[in-house]
């Protein structure tokens, strides 16, 4: 762009006339109540307003944000843990014997139940598998298995997406230009 100095310019009659025209130009007033409308908008968009209160929800439940309650719950948990640990240390042999007996009995019962189930259903399951294979063929079964294997992670991702936390809202930032 060509810069043209305006410092040393001599006003002509036309310039003076233009200045006269420009000097007649008034300033305009906005409608009455302009200042009040602006202040109302400033109040609506200022700090503490509903517009700016769109912070992401806190991860800690509201109940636990009360310090007295949080300290109380923590103290109770720590106290009961200490009492339990002390009692277990004092009665270690009796506890160990009880745990062993209970574990063995539960384990044996579960093992016997599993064996019984296998004996009952193995014949039926074998027959059903043989009939299915004869009907659909080995290749179809392989394809079905592959489909299931592929579908499982996809379903897992879908579940994760379905139960993900709500999207956090962002504050709009208005830069002054």
């Amino acid at each position, binding site marked *: 762009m060509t810069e043209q100095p305006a410092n040393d*310019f001599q006003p002509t009659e*036309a310039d003076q006339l*233009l200045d006269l025209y420009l000097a007649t130009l008034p300033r305009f007033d906005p409608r009455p109540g302009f200042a009040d409308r602006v202040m109302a908008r400033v109040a609506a968009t200022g700090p503490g307003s509903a517009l700016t209160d769109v912070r992401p929800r806190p991860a800690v439940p509201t109940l636990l944000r009360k310090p007295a309650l949080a300290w109380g719950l923590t103290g109770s948990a720590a106290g009961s843990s200490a009492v339990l640990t002390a009692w277990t240390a004092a009665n270690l042999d009796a506890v160990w014997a009880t745990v062993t007996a209970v574990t063995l009995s539960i384990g044996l019962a579960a093992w016997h139940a599993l064996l019984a189930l296998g004996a009952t259903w193995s014949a039926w399951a074998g027959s059903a598998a043989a009939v299915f294979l004869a009907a659909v063929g080995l290749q179809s079964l392989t394809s079905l298995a592959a489909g299931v294997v592929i579908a499982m992670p996809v379903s897992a991702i879908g579940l994760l997406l379905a139960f993900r936390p709500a999207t956090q809202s962002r504050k709009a930032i208005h830069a*002054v230009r």
Partner: protein
Amino acid sequence: MTQAWRLSNATDQEVVHAARAGREDAHHELLRRYQRPVFSLIYRMVRDRELAEDLAQETFVKVLGALDSYRPEFKFSSWIFKIANNAAIDHLRKRQLDTLSLEGAPDASNPDRVEATQIQVASRRETPLEEVEARELGSAIEQAIGELRPEYRSCIILRHIEGRSYEEIAQTLDLPLGTVKTYIHRARAELMEILGPLRE
């Protein structure tokens, strides 16, 4: 001595300082001082009273909400005019309105809209004849300004209506000083060309 009296006699910087401290009357004082110049600048840029008021409101909301980012080493008037001019220029760019007429905005599709967008020129003359002449001259010069490019229009308004120095205009419009002088020189030349027939 009341606070209101002190504010009305305070400098812009002092009023801004008070506004930053949260004084609502300081906000009102800034509005009182600048609502006419800011509205006039925007009105002459966009040539639509309703739109100009919206943009002027937007300007003040931005200014009052961002007082903390104002740097006191610059004139407050330059800062507020800069924000106002940016609002008007942004709107013009969006709508691509380069020229408008005094008879109403070009997109005015019905008589009500034409009337709403006509520029209103107030007269300060006393006799009816002088009033008519003033309105005629005012209309012609307003129309001529409306035909200028937005950059030239801003320069002419700030220089000849708001009485700002070249340096302030350069600061306000983020332009080199030489460019401001060139713009004003060319804008004046265009205005004289447009107004030429009236002088004869």
